[in-house]
Every structure is written in structure tokens, then in C-alpha cells.
């Protein structure tokens, strides 16, 4: 297993090669990429920031949970931070297991938990020039009430 928060482009092929093993009959690769629209508003790019130390710790915890739930699997996760362009890979998860069901399930578990728990934030840049931090619900942040 390996987890990392990185500030360079993610090479998904490297992750795949890393989990490849003759014991594993199945490998699954998930990549998340920067999408060109959010809630109907065109996006030109975005930047990710993280609470680095806690994000690393949380990613490790999530992967350790996956390894306990699907024994015999291997999991590699990289999440990129900094400025990303449309189509860039923001997150890659490679899982491997002797059998495909467990490899798929482990990959799904890791991305869903990462999205819920990893202290990473994304600011979208729109065609209009406006930027906005995106929250978990997908909506814009609200103004705090006095």
C-alpha cells in the first residue's frame, strides 16, 4: 500500500504497475479528472488545497480500513493539489486482489471515503472569472449569519 498527496501530475500507469503482482488476478484503476462544468456553470480550471499532514493520515487510515475489509488486496492512492487544468487527473486509486469483485469494491470504498473524510478543498475557476470554494454538498458556501 502507498498513499500520497502530490504537487505534480499523476501518472496513473505508475500506480497500476505498482499494484501489479502475479498473486492478483484483478487490478482496478480509478481516476478522477477535472470536469468542465459544475452545476451548469462552465469551469476553466481549479485548484486544490489540503491540510497536508491530516490528509496524509486520513488517506492512510482509509486504505488500512480497505485492506482489513478485503484481505489480500493492495491499494495505492495519490491525490494531487495545486492548480489543475481541465482533464487533469486529480486523484488516482489502483487496487489489486486475487479476484475482481474485491478489487472493484476496495476502489469504490477508498474514493467514497476519501471524498467524505480527506481534508482537501477545491476552488473552481469559472468562465466569468469568478472563483468559489466547493463544499461537500456541491453547493456554494453560505454567508455566516450574524
Amino acid at each position, binding site marked *: 500500500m502507498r498513499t500520497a498527496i502530490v504537487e505534480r501530475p499523476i501518472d496513473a500507469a505508475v500506480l497500476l504497475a505498482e499494484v501489479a503482482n502475479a498473486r492478483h488476478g484483478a487490478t482496478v484503476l480509478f481516476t478522477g479528472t477535472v470536469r468542465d462544468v459544475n452545476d451548469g456553470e462552465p469551469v476553466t480550471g481549479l485548484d486544490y488545497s489540503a*491540510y497536508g499532514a491530516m490528509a496524509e493520515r486520513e488517506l492512510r487510515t482509509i486504505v488500512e480500513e480497505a485492506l482489513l475489509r478485503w484481505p489480500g488486496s493492495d491499494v495505492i492512492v495519490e491525490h494531487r493539489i495545486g492548480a489543475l487544468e481541465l482533464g487533469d487527473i486529480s486523484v488516482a486509486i489502483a487496487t489489486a486482489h486475487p479476484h475482481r469483485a474485491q478489487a472493484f469494491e476496495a476502489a469504490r470504498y477508498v474514493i467514497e471515503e476519501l471524498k467524505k473524510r480527506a481534508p*482537501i478543498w477545491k476552488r473552481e475557476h469559472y468562465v466569468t472569472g469568478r472563483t468559489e*470554494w466547493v463544499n461537500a454538498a456541491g453547493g456554494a458556501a453560505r454567508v455566516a449569519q450574524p
Partner: protein
Amino acid sequence: MTVRVLLFASYADALGGTEVLLDLPAGARVADVRARVTALARGKRVPERPLVAVNQRYASDDQAVTASDEVAIIPPVAGG
């Protein structure tokens, strides 16, 4: 006691920095930290009820904080 609170994303923007020092009474809890920081961000564009982490773990409202803890405000995350 003085507690250093790390800020990220919308909270860092709203308060103009990546940390804030709070003067809190001994025995203060996570809920007190959140109340003080959200008060500082009043009127700014931030999520109203962020989570709080203590020593890099999500903390419950009644967890006590001390001056030596690493405390952080965690607005809704959006990784992936």
C-alpha cells in the same frame, strides 16, 4: 491559554491568513473554538458549521482543547 487554530480554504480567505490565535479559558472545548472562529468570520462567505480537528483527527464538540494541541477548522471537504 492561547490556542493556535489552523485555517483552510474559505476560512483562510475569510480571516485573511492560515491560522489564528485564540485566547480561551482553561477547559475550553471544541465547540468553543468553533464558536469563536465562526464569530470572527461573521458576514463572510463561509460554511456556517465547520468541523474541528484536534491533533489531525476529527473531534467531537465536547472534546477539551489545550494550548499544546494542533487545532484546525475543517470546512466541508471537496477532494476527489
